[in-house]
Every structure is written in structure tokens, then in C-alpha cells.
């Protein structure tokens, strides 16, 4: 079974990927914009935060800078799409590839260690909590703040305009909504959240690495789809809850699969497990509906 430390570790990473899932919810679900920039903006957030922290900046300011850097990356993708008419998926791949170089430039080397530095987590270790519980507590607070801000935003006039842009662009334009501007704002916001996740991940793991972004999009999507399978996203609140719970459940499922000796799985099987879990998350809701359908037909 899962040890306590492995459990907290999984929840901690799950909370970080909850932020990634928020971002992916904005791009994939709200805007219907398949955005792969996140594979680059996650390590970008990590790199920016790490380099500022080792240069003596306040870790919160460094984290804020990581959010801005992520937003800038997202804006580049959206502008390539909106202004230069490059297909959204391709635009995001271009930015993602470019960010690999940018991230190396930002750090000046492939990775930056933060083990001896003060991070956003440092003051929380004095509160008397167990060492492995500290990140979980702080990240729960961060996720709650992000959740409330995002929920309020989606209910605001601008947020509603953004949702209309993704759902029915022609109708949105007819209502006077600048759909291009909404896409730029939304994708920027999405990658800002991913940049935040990257910055927090680097600080909790003690290092930023240029390769840490590989597969972030798949994990984020897995969290989103898995969460939606558990909590039907019929409202904004439910959709956001689905992001967080999906991410935590996903990390727990991975941790469980890797820790259960009976299954005989090892760390290198991670990506295979991911693929299996995503497939299950996509297929299971359909199975559930058809089983329910058969049951109700029998009753009738």
C-alpha cells in the first residue's frame, strides 16, 4: 500500500497539476483551443522563478514573474493564431519548441538547483507541521485562491464573453465581442496558471530543469478528462472542481500503481500507465451511460 509520505507527495503534485488542469480547462474547454504551449510554459515558469530566486529575489515576486512569463508565452501562441492565421495546434507547437531554447537561455544551463535557497515554502516549515505536509497545506491555499478568482472571472462579463467566444464565435462577434482579443487573453491566462504551476513545482522539488515540461500537456489533459468523468462539468464550479480532483486522483492512481508490488510496475512504466488511465477516463463515461441505458430499458 501507499506510505504516508508517498500519499502526501502524490497530493502535493496533484495540487500543482490541478493548476495546470485549470489552464488546460481554459484553453481546451472554454476556448476550444488545443494548446500545447504548456509543455514549454511549465518549465518556463520554473526557470524564471528559479533564476530569480538564486539571484536573491523574494520567492513570491519570483513566482509572480513566472506567471507573467507564462502569460507572455501564451500570448505569443494566441497572436500567431489570431493575427497571423496559423492553425492553433501548430502555433502552440511552434511556441513550445521555441520555449525550449528560451528556457535554456533563461537559466543559462540545463538545470538550476534550489535546495539551499529560500522558497515560498521556507516560512511554512516553522509552523510545526510535518515536513511532507507543508507543501500540501500551502498548495491547497494557492489552489483555493486560483479557484475562486477563476470562478469569479468566468462569471464576469469578460469571462462570459470568453465562454461565448469558444462556444459560438459568430454569435460572439455579433454581440460585439472581439473574439481575437478574447482568445489572446484566455490563452495567456491559461499559460499564466501553468507558469505558476511550474514555479511551485520547481520550489517544492528543489530544482528547475529544462526537460521537466515533457508530457505536462498529457498529464494535464488526463487530469481534466479524468476529473470530468467523476464530476460532470455541468457548471463552471463543477468543471473547476473536476480539474483539481482529477489531478489529485490521477497522481494517487499513479502512486498506487507504482507502489503496489503485486502489479510489478516500475517507475519507467509511468507513461504507459498514463496512457492506460487516460484511455479509461475517456472510455468509462461512455460505458457508464450505455450500462445505465440498458438498465433503464429493462425496467421499462
Amino acid at each position: 500500500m501507499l506510505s504516508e509520505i508517498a500519499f502526501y507527495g502524490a497530493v502535493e503534485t496533484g495540487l500543482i497539476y490541478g493548476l495546470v488542469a485549470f489552464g488546460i480547462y481554459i484553453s481546451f474547454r472554454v476556448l476550444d483551443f488545443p494548446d500545447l504551449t504548456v509543455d514549454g510554459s511549465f518549465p518556463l515558469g520554473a526557470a524564471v522563478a528559479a533564476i530569480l530566486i538564486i539571484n536573491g529575489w523574494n520567492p513570491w515576486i519570483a513566482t509572480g514573474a513566472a506567471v507573467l512569463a507564462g502569460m507572455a508565452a501564451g500570448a505569443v501562441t494566441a497572436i500567431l493564431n489570431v493575427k497571423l492565421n496559423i492553425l492553433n495546434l501548430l502555433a502552440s507547437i511552434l511556441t513550445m519548441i521555441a520555449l525550449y531554447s528560451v528556457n535554456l537561455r533563461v537559466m543559462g544551463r540545463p538545470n538550476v538547483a534550489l535546495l539551499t535557497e529560500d522558497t515560498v515554502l521556507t516560512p511554512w516549515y516553522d509552523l510545526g507541521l510535518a515536513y511532507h505536509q507543508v507543501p500540501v497545506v500551502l498548495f491547497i491555499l494557492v489552489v483555493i485562491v486560483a479557484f475562486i478568482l477563476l470562478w469569479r472571472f468566468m462569471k464576469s462579463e469578460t469571462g462570459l464573453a470568453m465562454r461565448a467566444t469558444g462556444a459560438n464565435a459568430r454569435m460572439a462577434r455579433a454581440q460585439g465581442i472581439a473574439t481575437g482579443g478574447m482568445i489572446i487573453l484566455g490563452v495567456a491566462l491559461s499559460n499564466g496558471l501553468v507558469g505558476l504551476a511550474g514555479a511551485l513545482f520547481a520550489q517544492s522539488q528543489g530544482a528547475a530543469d529544462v526537460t521537466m515540461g515533457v508530457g505536462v500537456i498529457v498529464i494535464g489533459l488526463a487530469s481534466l478528462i479524468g476529473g470530468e468523468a467523476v464530476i460532470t462539468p455541468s457548471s463552471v464550479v463543477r468543471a473547476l472542481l473536476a480539474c483539481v480532483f482529477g489531478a489529485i486522483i490521477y497522481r494517487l492512481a499513479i502512486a498506487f500503481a507504482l507502489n503496489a508490488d503485486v502489479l510489478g510496475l516500475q517507475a519507467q512504466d509511468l507513461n504507459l500507465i498514463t496512457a492506460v488511465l487516460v484511455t479509461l477516463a475517456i472510455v468509462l463515461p461512455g460505458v457508464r451511460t450505455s450500462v445505465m441505458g440498458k438498465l433503464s430499458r429493462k425496467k421499462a
Partner: protein
Amino acid sequence: MISASDLRLTFGKGTPLENPALRGMSLTVNQGEFVTVIGSNGAGKSTFLNALAGEVLVDSGEIIVDNTDVTKLPTHKRANRVARVFQDPLAGTCEGLSIEENLALAIKRGQRRGLTTAVKKQYMEKFRESLSSLKLGLENRLGDKMGLLSGGQRQAVSLLMASLTPSSILLLDEHTAALDPKTAAFVLELTQKIIEEQKLTALMVTHSMKQALEVGSRTVMLHQGQVVFDIAGQEREGLEVKDLLGLFEKQRGLSVDDDSLLLG
């Protein structure tokens, strides 16, 4: 008042599929007029409406709405002046959003959108009141998703949304064509009622000559991207579909070969 002069637009210029959709289209619609627009397939009706709305930009010509030149403005910058109902009942509303959210989008048409709550309490009475005028019981279903409504109900709400804030012109693009006859009659009646009550200036494209003569105060017929005739007032009174066809043949020396115009 809305005035279009000498609009020209060619799709696919320089390709084998080159298609001149508008060839010197001119039309002035005065304040408070309700103009019906007819024409066979490919006459340029939809392109004309799209040009007025800003969905397509014309190659040359000028579009003036209430003394403002909007020729080069994109759709969203004209939206404060131009309201629109689409042919497809699914196109005018967002099915994933609730009825009240759709109305909240429409009440801010063409205005700045901020960070305050979109669905405000002070809107509710207005929403309920206008929905109850539809007599569909929708005033009690404000929180329901738009996708739960039928095509006719959605088209009725689209119409309501278009008339929620003042506009210089209301564009109706065959907005009853995709509905069953009974629902189409309901939506048309509602259209007339709203236009009359709010004294709106409207341009309605229709595929039915009969409908074109029965509603509105003026009828124009388009052919090959131009206005071929334009009748109003006494001249239009008592006119029947066969007179309209005669008029068309006389004007162009052509016979109408589009069955849908005759059958409509």
C-alpha cells in the same frame, strides 16, 4: 438610417471559382422601415447581409449606418449599431450557457465588458418580462441551458436578444426558414410584433415571395448582386406573387427558374 452604395465583392478572385457576389449593390433603408429582401439562390442576399453585419468586407463601395462610415469595421465594432438573427436557430445562441447568460451577453451588445458579474440582479426583471412576452413559459427557466430548448424556442430567444438593446438596424437572415411551418408562423408573428412595438428598422431576407409581400413596408428583389426592383407604399399594396414574377421578368427580360421562389 442605413445606406449601402455601389457595394462590390468578388469571392475567390483570380481563381477558376471566381464568383462576383455583389455587383454594385445600392440600398438605403430609412428609419423605421421594415424591408423584405427576396432573390433566387446566388442573388447575393446572404452576402449583402453579411456585408452589412461586417462578417465579410466589401472590395469597394460604402456602408453608412447613422452617419458613420462602417465599411472597414469588423463585425464586433458594428455590433452596437447592427443586431442580427441567423437562419440557423443554433447559431444565434450559445447552447452551453444558460438562458440568463445568453440574455446577459446580449444586453451588453456592442458595449464594454468589465469584470463585474455578468448576470446582474437588476437585469432579472427585464429578462423575465421580455421572456414572458413570448408566452413559452421561459421566464421560469432562466437558469436552464439554452441547449435544452427547441429550435423554435431558441429562435424566439435570439430575436429577443437582438431587440434587448437599441440598434440602428435589425438584420434577419431567413430566420424562419429552418423551422417547421407552425413554429415559423409563430416566430414571424413575434418578429412583426417586436419590430412594430419597438419601431425598429429591419431588413429581412426571405425565400418566400408570399411572405415578402405580406410582412414589412417595402420589398426589394436582388438578382446577380444588384437590386432589380424596389417597391413600397401603394404600388406594393395588393400585389401578388404572380405580379412580382411579372415585374421581375419585365425588368430583366428573364424568367425565374428557381422553383423555390415560386413554391415558397
